[in-house]
């Protein structure tokens, strides 16, 4: 037990300063010929911080483009130090970053930034989601008209919805590429649908009532209940168009049978 405790000390001691620049290298850490270890330990500290900031930059390229590299890296550095990853899978990292952006003092004049980040995080989840076929249009056609109202769907693993009171989809689309950025004069709320219908992730803007409709269906509601909820939220809800969009985007993988 004593040996076990002593054994653990090197990692605990070495880890302490990796995300806290105020903590110096542990005593047991040395260099040949009595050389100093400040810069040497800093190599590890730097590797940790820079590689995790890089990971956030890879996950949130549109945010970095909007804020500029310097702003982004300063913001990301705060987040990395406060919330380092728990999982060794870096593509799982940064789930708390949108909420961090929301509370980040220097980003308050960009209230739409957090939702744009949420779309980027959803994009990466869709990218790594399991491979399953998208529900074919014929599958709907094959359902008896009398049972159509009660039908439920099995979500495709890539499907995500991000609702925003800001034009987050337009902001995402404009900044996710290297193309030119033009002034955006919209203050409309936008709901994003993120899917991977074939090989590539697709982000599209949902029409009025579309988010409520799909969220209900994704949560297992029957078609008739989801339609009712959509109409309640948006009297202009267009069922035909939303069904067609749902099929082509690949939101679902199958019709749920049974239960």
């Amino acid at each position, binding site marked *: 037990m004593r*040996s*076990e405790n*002593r*054994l*653990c000390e*090197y*990692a*605990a001691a*070495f*880890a302490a300063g*990796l*995300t806290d620049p105020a903590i110096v*290298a542990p*005593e*047991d*850490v*040395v*260099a*040949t*010929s009595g*050389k*100093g*270890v*400040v*810069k*040497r*330990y800093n*190599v*590890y500290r730097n*590797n*940790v911080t820079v*590689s*995790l900031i890089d*990971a956030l930059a890879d996950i949130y390229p549109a945010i970095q483009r909007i804020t500029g590299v310097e702003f982004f890296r300063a913001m990301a550095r705060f987040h990395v130090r406060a919330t*380092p*990853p*728990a*999982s*060794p*899978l*870096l*593509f799982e990292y940064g789930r708390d970053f949108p909420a961090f952006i929301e509370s980040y003092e220097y980003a308050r004049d960009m209230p739409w930034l957090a939702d744009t980040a949420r779309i980027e995080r959803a994009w990466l989840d*869709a*990218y*790594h*989601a*399991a*491979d*399953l076929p998208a529900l074919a249009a014929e599958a709907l056609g094959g359902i008896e008209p009398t049972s159509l109202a009660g039908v439920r769907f099995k979500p495709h*693993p*890539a499907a995500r919805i991000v609702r925003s009171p800001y034009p987050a989809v337009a902001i995402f689309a404009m900044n996710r590429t290297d193309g030119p950025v033009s002034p955006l004069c919209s203050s409309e709320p936008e709901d994003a649908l993120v899917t*991977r219908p074939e*090989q*590539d992730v697709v982000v599209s803007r949902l029409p009025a009532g579309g988010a409520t409709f799909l969220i209900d269906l994704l949560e297992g509601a029957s078609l008739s209940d989801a339609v009712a909820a959509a109409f309640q939220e948006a009297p202009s809800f267009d069922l035909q168009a939303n069904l067609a969009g749902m099929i082509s985007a690949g939101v679902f993988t199958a019709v749920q049978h049974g239960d």
Partner: protein
Amino acid sequence: MEYSTRTTAIGERGRPPVGTPDAQGLAGTSFKHEHLSAILADRLKDGFFEVHAENYMGAGGPPHRALAAIREGYPLSIHGVCMSIGGPGALDATHLARFRDVVVRYEPALVSEHLAWSSHGGTFFNDLLPLPYTKETLEKVCDHVNQVQEAIKRPILLENPSTYVAFASSTMSETDFLRAVAQHTGCGLLLDVNNVFVSANNHGFSASAYLAGFPLEEVGEIHLAGYSEQEDDENELLLIDSHDRAISDSVWTLYRDVVSRIGPRPTLIEWDSNLPDWPVLRAQALTARRIMAQHGISLAGELSHEV
């Protein structure tokens, strides 16, 4: 449990610790998705590709599609970077299961991990961190290597690290430590020649002397990479294992020396950032292959100077 009394059903002693018998002379590179179409258009003969296991631990999507396309034409090396084999804590069982799944899915020719740690106390640091070399850490590392080998039902290759600091509490040399791990667990070793060069500079020892003490008979794969330069507290040269440029002449020379002593081994050009176009990477792999062809049989005392 004493590591020294533990037997392993895998990793039979006395044979080259390599997955496939015809893999010895292969020269390969890190696989980056940016290069996929160039690689598929321009076949690398006798090549192989290495990927970080963690990048393929997602459920599906484009990464697996790209890797499956490469796997159709080439042997693969699955290189784990996050198992934390050198850490004092228990291995992450979930991560170990994911690692096993990647190995089962891609049936790689080579599987490797690091003598280092990267997670502690619930935090993942995303770096290969150093450990003291003691009887206690040896026992722990052997236990971890055994667990990995039991999970994937085959031996792994354990890579020597590049380090920037040492530990006052160390009681063994790195080469003795690696030899003991190989002896006790049946694992092979991944000799990173650039790491040897970087550590030798950083700790003021001779790279050749390190290699003289290295259990070369256990080497199942060789890594080559580029390093960058910084300064230590005394404003003296500190080398960083950066994987972001071409291999230095000094590292090629050490490599030639190793190959002339042990013959060809699957050799990988590691290049992870500041990526060049595919032909540049390919040319580095072909240089390694040429060296293996020219020096792969014992040619003691006959080092040429043409690289």
